[in-house]
């Protein structure tokens, strides 16, 4: 291994390791069956996104002849080769899991996948009717004479490729030709069969294969196989060139259907000849071809998992709990005026955040609402509240990020509705994605203008807030209010950026602030004062920040990292990082919060943030770093951070060689349950305590028992 190879992990391979951990949940026999199927679907869908976004970009670099090395010293070509090896292995495991473990067990959840040959006469007649009435009209066979005439495919959709044989026109003998049938946007993937008590289905591609000969009455079908191509979606949006961003984004949506391909998946039954034909037409190398031994596109099995039933096949329900800090009978603004409210979703319900915007929309004393929107849900109650607020004469400003990956179409639609209602809509800052989560309510009160704030680590999306672990801080702190307003003024272009006292914002001051905080820990350590760094982020990629953490480790500062996804930092290497510990928790909730704790000589500094520690977050996005100074909120965050490091069931430890292992259960210091379960039980306990003592004094969350 070269020196640079020792210092960092390659980010793509680290990402694949993360997806391996998701797959391990699908393989975990102690999990409920349908949840395992969901993890399988997530693994598959993650992999699709990875090929679209990351591999596509690398292929473009490789195609342009780039030999630029990444932080681990690998050229694009070397990276692509390594990715291909690892992704093939992952795909193999994925299908092993599906074919050997999950599909055979599906009947336990009253789900049956049937093959065409297994159908009863009645079922066969039924599928024949479905084929005639609903499928034939939607499937158009397109002849492919040469790679140039290959039809335009929608990325990640399934198509059939048919190899046909017919008598040659001019001379004796036979000629073969290829026909492609793109399924495109056919809404059916699983054709539900009439059956009793169970959900039975056949796959669309198998149904089409069964009747394929009917499309080609005078030809012989040599083979008919399903395939799926993944498109490269890594389109740099050239903001500097286009005047009208909205228009440009619409063009990008079109452009995304026409860019190069990153991966070909083809049914393992396909002949070498057909496989080569497809990879030639799509311009893909051998290493980009994945031969699939089962159904293509396992991400669709989400739907199947939803259709299943049966005792014990799903997780115990964990309904979000109402925070005892929020009294449903009083105005949310009164609550916030009395105390800061820290929520940790999904254990704490997201309702107070929705209420915050809804009450603001109706409150006659509210003058203005200013909010960033990145990804919202369909029929978002927050968008609806903003529209109502504007209609009620409030001054509503929204920064809508159109570039949120793959959500552009919905965001454009949402932005339109807001504009029509009279909301001032801004489409972010040129050249930067606005990723910060911030809502400001300006309210006129008897003692003067008061600002109520919500800072979050996750999106304003109440449906994902049931699944993503995120922190929310509701406060009316004066300093934060002043900073939040000046942050908003600068993002909307009403003002040049002004000095902020409490908040730090990327791309201007956030990186420097974090660097200062780490440097300070090194100083404290040198002066034999309390030091230590605990971070919770989704990804740690940025080489500068990693080097700083290495320096901290070398100075003797204890560094604990809770990183769900990519981690390019190599922990536990003597002389480099022996004081660094990395834990990754992959469990039923998606770990998404970004929390930072610096011991700072005993004067603990805690922050929440929208930013991951990646170059794109620190330098090319508008992000916020928010200090949490209120004692109770800070203590709760510290307790939350602590439990992840005590998780010996789901908390996988990153090893110096890049693998992740679950620590031995004999370790006595750990929790007796996974961190997420502990968090839920603890949230329940506190809620019950609060319910019992209907007093105004609330119990703080306690740190996990030692």
């Amino acid at each position, binding site marked *: 291994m070269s020196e640079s190879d020792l210092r960092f992990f390659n980010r793509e391979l680290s990402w694949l390791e993360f997806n391996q951990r998701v797959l391990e949940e699908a393989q975990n026999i102690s999990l409920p069956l349908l949840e395992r199927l969901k993890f399988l679907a997530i693994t598959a869908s993650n992999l699709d996104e990875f090929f679209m976004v990351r591999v596509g970009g690398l292929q473009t670099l490789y195609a342009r002849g780039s030999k630029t090395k990444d932080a681990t010293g690998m050229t694009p070509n070397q990276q692509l080769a390594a990715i291909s090896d690892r992704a093939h292995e992952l795909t193999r495991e994925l299908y092993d899991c599906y074919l050997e473990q999950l599909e055979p067990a599906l009947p336990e959840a009253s789900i049956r996948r049937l093959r065409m040959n297994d159908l009863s006469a009645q079922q066969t007649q039924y599928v024949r009717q479905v084929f005639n009435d609903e499928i034939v009209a939607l499937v158009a066979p397109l002849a492919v004479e040469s790679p140039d005439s290959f039809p335009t495919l929608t990325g990640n959709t399934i198509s059939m490729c048919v190899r046909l044989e017919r008598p040659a026109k001019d001379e004796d003998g036979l000629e073969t030709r290829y026909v492609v049938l793109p399924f495109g946007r056919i809404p059916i993937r699983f054709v539900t069969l009439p059956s009793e008590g169970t959900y039975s289905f056949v796959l669309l591609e198998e149904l089409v294969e069964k009747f394929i000969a009917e499309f080609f009455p005078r030809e012989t079908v040599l083979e008919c196989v399903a395939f799926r191509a993944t498109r490269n979606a890594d389109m740099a949006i050239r903001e500097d060139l286009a005047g009208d961003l909205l228009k440009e984004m619409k063009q990008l949506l079109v452009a995304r259907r026409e860019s190069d391909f990153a991966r070909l998946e083809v049914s393992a039954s396909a002949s070498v000849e057909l496989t080569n034909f497809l990879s030639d037409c799509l311009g893909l190398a051998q290493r980009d071809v994945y031969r699939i031994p089962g159904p293509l596109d396992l991400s669709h099995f989400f739907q199947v998992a939803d259709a299943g039933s049966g005792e014990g096949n799903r997780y115990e329900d964990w309904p979000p709990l109402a925070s005892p800090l929020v009294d449903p009978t009083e105005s949310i603004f009164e609550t916030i005026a009395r105390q800061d409210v820290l929520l940790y979703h999904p254990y704490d319900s997201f309702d107070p955040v929705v209420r915050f915007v809804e009450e603001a929309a109706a409150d006659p004393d509210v*003058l*203005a609402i200013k909010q960033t929107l990145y990804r919202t849900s369909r029929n978002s109650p927050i968008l609806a509240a903003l529209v109502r607020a504007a209609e009620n004469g409030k001054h509503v400003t929204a920064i809508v990020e159109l570039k949120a990956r793959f959500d552009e179409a919905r965001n454009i639609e949402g932005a339109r509705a807001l504009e029509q209602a009279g909301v001032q809509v801004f489409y972010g800052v040129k050249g930067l994605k606005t990723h910060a989560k911030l809502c400001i309510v300006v309210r006129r*009160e008897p003692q*003067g203008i008061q600002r109520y704030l919500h800072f979050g680590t996750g999106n304003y999306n109440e449906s994902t807030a049931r699944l993503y672990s995120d922190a929310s801080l509701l406060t009316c702190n004066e300093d934060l209010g002043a900073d939040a*307003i000046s942050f908003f*003024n600068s993002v909307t272009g*009403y*003002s040049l950026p002004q000095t902020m006292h409490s908040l730090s914002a990327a791309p201007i001051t956030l990186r420097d602030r974090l660097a200062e905080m780490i440097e300070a820990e090194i100083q404290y350590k040198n002066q034999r004062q309390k030091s230590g760094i605990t971070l919770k982020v989704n990804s740690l990629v940025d080489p500068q920040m990693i080097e700083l953490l290495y320096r901290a480790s070398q100075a003797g500062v204890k560094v604990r990292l809770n990183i769900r996804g990519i981690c390019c930092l190599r922990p536990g290497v003597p002389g480099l990082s022996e004081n660094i510990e990395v834990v990754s928790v992959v469990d039923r909730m998606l770990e998404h919060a970004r929390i930072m704790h610096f011991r700072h000589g005993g004067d603990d500094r805690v922050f929440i943030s929208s930013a991951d520690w990646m170059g794109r977050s620190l330098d090319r996005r508008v992000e916020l770093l928010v200090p949490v100074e209120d004692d109770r909120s800070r203590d709760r965050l510290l307790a939350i951070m602590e439990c992840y490091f005590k998780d010996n069931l789901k908390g996988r430890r990153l090893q110096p060689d890049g693998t992740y292992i679950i620590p031995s259960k004999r370790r006595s210091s750990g929790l007796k349950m996974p961190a997420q379960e502990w968090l839920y039980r603890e949230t329940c306990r506190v809620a019950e305590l609060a319910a019992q003592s209907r007093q105004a004094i609330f119990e703080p969350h306690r740190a996990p028992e030692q």
Partner: protein
Amino acid sequence: MSTRQTQPEIISSGTDAPSSPPRLVAVIDIGTSAIRMAIGEITADGSTRTIDKLSQAVAIGKETFTGKKISRSTIEDCVRILCSYRVVLDSYGISSDEQLRCIATSAVREATNRLVFLDRIYIATRIQVDVLDQSEVARITFLGVQSTLKADSHLASARSLVVEVGGGNTEFLVVEHGQVTFSQTCSLGSLRLRKMMESLKTPVRKEREFLENQIDRFVSQTLQQIHPDDGLTTELIALGGDFRFAAKELAPDRVEDSLAIISITTLQKFVDKILPMSVDELVYDYRLTFPDAETLVPALLTIIDVAQRLNVDQIRVSDVNLRDGLLKELASNDIWSGDFRDHVISSAIDLGTRYGLDKAHAQHVATLAEKLFDALLPHHHLDARARVMLTLASLLHEVGMLIGISGYHKHSMYVIQNSELFGLSRLDLQIVALVARYHRRSAPRPTHSGYSGLSRQDRVVVSKLASILRVADALDRSYSQRIRDFTCDIQKDRLIITVPGVDDLSLEQIALKETAQLFEETYGLSVLIRGSRA
């Protein structure tokens, strides 16, 4: 500008009235390189709280200081910025004219197409821009910095020189025991210097020499005029964005809202470091805006020069800015009766002293004039501002004697017209000068230059005040301040001044005969003076 028609305010002493919610106001300052807005609240007790601050860059100074004219595109930039500020104002529900004060400083004032600019802004945005005279800027600056000076026990009793280096001008305020004793503005500004340097195409290696020469010429002149060379130490207080930036860089650990202290050596080293850097490098390395990067070096060199001339080894940097002062001004119900009045008067006394006035007589006449003013309130309906004008004119009515006895009232007028009295606009100064002029001899005539240019309202003010000053001056014709107390009664068409405890008033009676004609013409009252035995 016109005379305020409001009645003098009766200050209510009731404190148990329920406190009303704070008043939301906004101030906009159109400066040399930026248009800045602050939104603030004024509570019932007059304290202010800034709740929103905005700033956008414009190139007004760049154009005015070189081409003398604001270009069309810059005017439209200003319109666009002010329209965007309107949106922010709307979001706070600030819509009435009383809630908004918009001012412009030297860059607009010196533009030859000033009126075009102001009209265009008004048409496009309905915002009325007041172009401030430099001494008004000084007054507002002082309002802003005053509380800082008061809060610091050391500064409250020391002598301070407050220096604000702006883009177009530099203000100097000498403050002793919380009172402004001198104020002076010179047209030495950081952006002006930069533009001058560019238009003269000063070679890069000569830049420092050029700047230091220019700066020193202005600074030495100004300090000679305003700074008494009495060996007392002076604290140097610097205001302005350039110093705020320097403080952030050089004194990062200072406590919020306190004055940052920077030693001159540190500042020197910093200038040595940044002087060779190009504007682009400054922008990149220090995350400054371009306009801020352009003015940094000239401003820092100016304060260093002042410090060296005064022999002080450190400066204190205050965070306050023009908007803070404007908010304070909006907060003070009537600036003409509070602290500010004291500052103007003390600066008038200082002016008088420099001209060797009979201080006792001047102050006594002022006291008498104020007394008469108050007694005649129902007859003249003038406000507190007019009362201050009267006081100033009374204090300075003989200031021209140093130049020559013959026609000294006219000399007094010239002297006042050409002096700076702290915080007074040119118009205010003109009124004071005319009142002083008309304290003897000819009554105001339309042919008199200066007088004819006034609005009718202001002409009336001059007549009313000059009449009172004549009577007051007559009452101390003895120059002995023997008439201290008197009562006024109005009977039919006569003003009867009764002086207790004085027998022989013949001197004053003769004096009145000479001068009271204007009073009769103005108020329709003849003046009678008589003694009384208690």
